[in-house]
């Protein structure tokens, strides 16, 4: 058994605007360390998803900086995909492929040693084992959401960014999310963007974004 990695995720004077439109990501200062989970909350349009996209290295902030370090090693935004898993409603899969094929491709592209094994373990973890051979085109919204979760867990990253992880999920799916957050909290860091009271309860810490909601036009 290897020791859990020491993870730190932080932001300094972090600001993001979409053109003239401000978000709740304005002069943000934060730092969170592992183990544990952090709920990122705030009204719709306050910048929760924006913050996660910036941390994932997918979006360059208007001002300020972020850090993601694992065992003391800083990861530049462009290299963060190796150490984090990201669940977002914007993530889509190749519909002509099965769930297994999608995840095997992702595992191969990530350079994992046993792609088929990683894919099947991740699918089993989110309860999709029995439907792994179905094409994604026939998946329901809830099954696609589970697949997003499996995709994020594929490489067992120390940092998990979950944007509305419970959306479209039935009770069993929500239970799977709770399990994932609980296990990941023990071995790394989870940032959970949500306004769902049940999901907020999964996190001991909280980062509240104070935007005016639906984007501050000022």
């Amino acid at each position, binding site marked *: 058994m290897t020791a859990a990695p020491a993870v730190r995720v932080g932001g300094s004077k972090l600001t993001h605007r979409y053109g003239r439109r401000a978000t709740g990501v304005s002069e943000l200062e934060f730092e969170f360390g592992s183990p544990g989970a952090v709920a990122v909350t705030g009204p719709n349009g306050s910048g929760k998803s924006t913050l996660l996209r910036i941390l994932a290295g997918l979006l360059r902030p208007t001002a300020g900086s972020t850090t993601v370090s694992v065992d003391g090693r800083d990861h530049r935004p462009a290299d963060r995909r190796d150490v984090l898993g990201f669940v977002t409603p914007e993530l*889509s899969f190749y519909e002509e*492929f099965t769930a297994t094929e999608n995840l095997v491709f992702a595992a*191969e*592209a*990530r*350079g994992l040693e046993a792609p088929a094994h990683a894919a099947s373990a991740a699918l089993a973890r989110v309860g999709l084992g029995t439907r792994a051979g179905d094409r994604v085109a026939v998946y329901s919204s809830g099954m696609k959401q589970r697949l997003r979760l499996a995709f994020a867990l594929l490489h067992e990253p120390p940092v998990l960014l979950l944007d509305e992880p419970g959306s479209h999920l039935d009770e069993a799916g929500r239970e799977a999310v709770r399990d994932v957050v609980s296990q990941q909290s023990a071995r790394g860091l989870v940032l959970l963007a949500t306004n769902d009271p049940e999901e907020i309860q999964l996190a001991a810490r909280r980062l509240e974004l104070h935007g005016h909601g639906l984007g501050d036009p000022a």
Partner: protein
Amino acid sequence: MPRAASSSTATVWAILRKECRSEWRTRYGLNAAVLFAVTSLTAVTFAAGRMPDRPDLLSALLWITLLFAALSSMSHSFVREMESRTLLLMRLVASPTEIALGKLLFNLLFLVIVEVVTVPLFLLLTGAPPLRMAQFLLILGLGTLSLAASSTLVGAVIAQTRSRGALFAGVSLPLLLPVLASGVSGTRAQWDGMPVDGDARLLAAYAVALFGVSLLLYDHLWED
């Protein structure tokens, strides 16, 4: 989770295999490209007949057929990722350069397959004079490389724009004209018994320049 060594190569290879499997499943581009090549060659042959004594027309016809057959499909390489919203998945598992290199290799392979079907059919239907095979393959190979490099670069650049389809044609044209001109000139020269070195050098230099520019650009393409 253990990782294999040389993960950039593994990533590019994985993307190439994914592209091949996706094309095989959907036949999105190959059917359209081959259908275009066969239809246009058949129509021209019916209208103009066989023309073994017109290497000038033959070389232009060959490159126009190859260009349009390929472009009708290769432009979709990145556009399809945008429209099916799968580019984010790619970005979460690979760097922009790895993505573009995987797609470049796929576009190269795609072009080679289109050429394997189109060139023999072209030679058969038009009654073209015998080829100087080494020179012909040199020009065809370098032209293919330039064509793939330019269409991959343009596809990547326009992927996030709104009018992707219209932009592809507009942005591609100036980039593809030198390829087309040198390809036509070199192919004609090999039929005329003239040296093809000048055209080959131009095509090679163009391919290298496009590839170099692409490597510099790819990592900055999709920064929001």
